[in-house]
């Protein structure tokens, strides 16, 4: 019965359901974009340079991959709350705060996995780039470009983590109906209210989105192996 109702909500294009989906995608895509802008170059930089605290930084970033979302949410809540250091920005309980929370959660994932991928490639390219006198910036750009298909998978992992996140966005977004309510927080809320069809409908959409993106990444990788070498 619930499954049928859930499908009917999806197939009938229920406005409330798709508003939540749109906001979720917007927040998660923005967070993935922000985290990529930070994580990709940071990972590449750590991969191709040597400095005294490098090992400690790698351990720290790896450890940050397991940051508890509710702790991150609480920290951002305190920073963005009216009495916090960035309270004046008025970002608490806005989609922007949710983007910040998700970006902080997935940036270490993107940075750590990028570092690993680029470091493996760097071992392969080091002599060639050394012989060509390739500068640091060009080196990082070239490695990021040549690892692009592996990096897409990493970005998808980040996207998936952000899309599935509930604790941090609940705390900093406040789960305000029509404003900061996203798929995961709605699923949690509607389940507690006994509105299982909507929760199930959103759950199905969330899983379909993740599956579709991963299928896209897989197809892209297969295509690249055939065409780009």
């Amino acid at each position, binding site marked *: 019965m619930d499954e049928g109702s859930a499908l009917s909500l999806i197939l009938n294009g229920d406005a409330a359901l798709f508003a939540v989906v749109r906001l979720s995608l917007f927040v998660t895509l923005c967070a993935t974009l922000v985290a990529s802008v930070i994580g990709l170059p940071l990972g590449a930089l750590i991969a191709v340079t040597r400095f005294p605290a490098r090992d400690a930084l790698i351990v720290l970033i790896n450890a940050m991959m397991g940051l508890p979302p509710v702790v991150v949410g609480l920290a951002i809540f305190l920073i963005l709350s009216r009495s916090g250091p960035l309270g004046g920005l008025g970002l608490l309980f806005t989609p922007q705060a949710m983007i910040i929370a998700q970006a902080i959660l997935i940036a270490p994932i993107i940075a750590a996995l990028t570092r690993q991928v680029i470091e493996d490639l760097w071992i392969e390219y080091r002599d060639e780039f050394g012989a060509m006198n390739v500068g640091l910036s*060009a080196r990082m750009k070239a490695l990021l470009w040549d690892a692009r298909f592996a990096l897409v998978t990493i970005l998808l992992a980040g996207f998936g983590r952000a899309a599935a996140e509930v604790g941090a966005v609940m705390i900093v977004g406040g789960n305000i109906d029509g404003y900061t309510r996203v798929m995961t927080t709605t699923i949690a809320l509607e389940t507690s209210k006994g509105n299982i069809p909507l929760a199930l409908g959103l759950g199905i959409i969330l899983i379909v989105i993740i599956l579709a993106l991963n299928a896209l990444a897989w197809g892209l990788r297969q295509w690249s192996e055939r065409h*780009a070498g």
Partner: protein
Amino acid sequence: MQDRVSERTVSRNPSIITLEKIGLRIDATDLLVGIDLEIRNGPPTILMGPNGSGKTTLLRLLMGLIEPSVGRVHFHGAANGLPIRRAIVFQKPVMLRRTAAANVAFALAAAHRSSDAASIVRLLDQVGLSALADRPARKLSGGEQQRLALARALAREPNILLLDEPTASLDPAQTKAVEDIITRVADNGVKVIMATHDIGEAKRLGGDVIFLNKGRVIEHSLAQRFFTQPATADVRRFLAGELVL
């Protein structure tokens, strides 16, 4: 022995590289020991010797990828008075994951040269790959990849071109294509220094031959003398196809 044999390398060509008492020790292992060499402009200089003799290490040192533990390498100015430019092609060159043309464009940009279409086509033409410009570099055959690596190296417009067994594992046709490029490059005044195991190739291309074993120069002489009147027992055994340990 080395000094005695080196004296036989009679050449009127100016010296382009001088190595003085070069030694390289890594992790308590001597990779190069007491290398004194005078490498002159002219036909290719061939590095020969068994595996682990120090050929690749010497090429990497000449490229500046490693520094000697002792001694010094002196590069004399190019004939036109400009600083020496070096380029190297490794035994297994790494192709960037992009087209052949984009590989050349990358090398041109790294050398701070114009990477316009005409420059790319000119370099690909030099190595006979212009028809494959849009093919992904990693999809090229082994010989084509070596030629593309040569094009990337030539993008630096080098005075000295270092080649590490560029025809190893290539079939005769591909070997000839690569050797033809090397000959043309050398004829255009680029000093080629090339490691090879192939005695036939050394005879075809070499002006002089440096024979290394266990990180030491065993013999350095003009190619004709090297192959007809080797001065050392090691080289005689090597040329006879015996194992040199």
